[in-house]
């Protein structure tokens, strides 16, 4: 216990990195999810096929494989491209950027399915009514689809987010100094790996518990005025 207090600075710093990683990658995944859902629902065959390929690959390959591929392969690719075109000299992709980008893209694939389902759940008549009132596409999205989509997508989003927070632990494998990495280093130097890994476990448990609580509150907020059947 004493060792944890001694190393609490590193643990807290790591926790902060983990939280930032989770939030930034979630923003990416929401953007990719919206883009993917739009592509999947569009009439353009090319967009549909691209989105289908994207979700299949991203949901079929484990996230750690993609993180490693982006971190090592992406760097190589960027440098080859740079030396080929002469646009830039040697560049280095930071662990944080690789983590945010990869986890964002991967979970964008999951969000695509969630958002697609949510958009399809909105009664078609409402969108037609919007068209009939002379609203353009953006106005329809802002006034009709957007607000209701949040409600329909929230259960799926909550699931994805809880998985995503846990996935951020994998970025420690490429050396990002998140809570897992810092906990591991501290545990190894004090020869108390169980104590420190247990502390890291608790950090994640608290993070997921807080998110769970917040998402429930959001769910309640966005379901105002909706009567749920409670025969379940």
């Amino acid at each position, binding site marked *: 216990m004493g060792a944890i207090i001694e190393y609490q600075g590193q643990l807290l710093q790591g926790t902060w990195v983990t939280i930032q990683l989770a939030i930034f990658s979630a923003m990416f995944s929401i953007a990719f999810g919206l883009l993917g859902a739009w592509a999947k629902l569009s009439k353009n065959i090319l967009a549909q096929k691209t989105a289908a390929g994207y979700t299949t690959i991203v*949901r079929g390959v*484990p996230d750690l494989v993609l993180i490693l*591929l982006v971190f090592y*392969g992406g760097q190589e690719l960027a440098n080859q491209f740079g030396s080929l075109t002469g646009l830039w000299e040697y560049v280095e992709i930071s662990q944080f950027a690789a983590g945010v980008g990869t986890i964002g893209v991967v979970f964008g694939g999951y969000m695509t399915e969630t958002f697609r389902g949510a958009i399809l759940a909105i009664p078609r008549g409402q969108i037609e009514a919007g068209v009939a009132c002379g609203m353009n596409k953006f106005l329809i999205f802002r006034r009709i689809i957007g607000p209701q989509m949040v409600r329909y997508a929230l259960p799926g989003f909550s699931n994805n987010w809880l998985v995503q927070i846990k996935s951020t*632990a994998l970025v*420690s494998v490429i050396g990002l100094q998140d809570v*897992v990495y810092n906990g591991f280093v501290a545990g190894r130097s004090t020869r108390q790996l169980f104590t420190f890994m247990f502390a890291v*476990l608790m950090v994640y448990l608290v993070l997921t518990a807080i998110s769970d609580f917040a998402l429930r509150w959001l769910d309640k907020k966005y379901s105002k005025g909706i009567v749920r059947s409670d025969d379940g």
Partner: protein
Amino acid sequence: MGDAIIAFLDAWSPIDLVLIAQNLDRFLLGAWVTLQLTFLSLVVGGCIAVPLAIIRAGNNALLNAPVWAFTYTFRGTPLLVQTYLIYYGLGQFEWIRESFVWGPVLSQAWWCALIAFSLNTAAYTTELLRGAIESTNRGEVEAAKACGFSRRMRLKRIVLPSAFRRALPAYSNEVIFMLHGSVVASTITIQDLLGVGRWLNGRYYLAYEGFITAAVFYLVIVLVISRGFRLWEKHWLQHLYPHDAVKVKPSKGLANFRI
């Protein structure tokens, strides 16, 4: 002919396909390790999950609380940390290091991965099965009670068979999730699919080849698993699908009766 292909690939392929082909046997071995770990942990986890799910669905608060704590902890934390806790963490305690399970089991990466994966999938499967058990049609349970079935008999004959079927689609997700999770094994020195990919890249100082090959392997395995589950669902959930509308031909005999 073979030489021509190799020369062509050497000159034109952006990644070193020849090297991958030369190391294909290692990748197959890695795939075997991955499949073995995934399958065994699903079996062990499943065996743990069934009784726990029955406890969770029942109303014994004394038993329910520890099972809830177990599933909550394992579902709320990353598999990577759980695996580290078991593989690196347990050695902290001297009495574990001196016990008879240390040498053959707890100091071995493979066993630690199996234990961590099994407990992890057990937690997820417990909650998934609990949902399926709780959504059993009340009427079926009441009918079984009326027929004088004991609780044991009701579970065996009525509740579990239909709960397993209803859990099947969600379970297919869990299987794929476990397969994806098994990459964690490569972080504790096991030569699974990703482990082989990392080895190849490290040995030949490459950036893509090993990871891309591993990714393709994983993708193929996932596609095969999800196809298999779809066939399985078709078989076991047949009674839940809407039947094809049976076209009733108006029989002539009756038609004659119509006024």
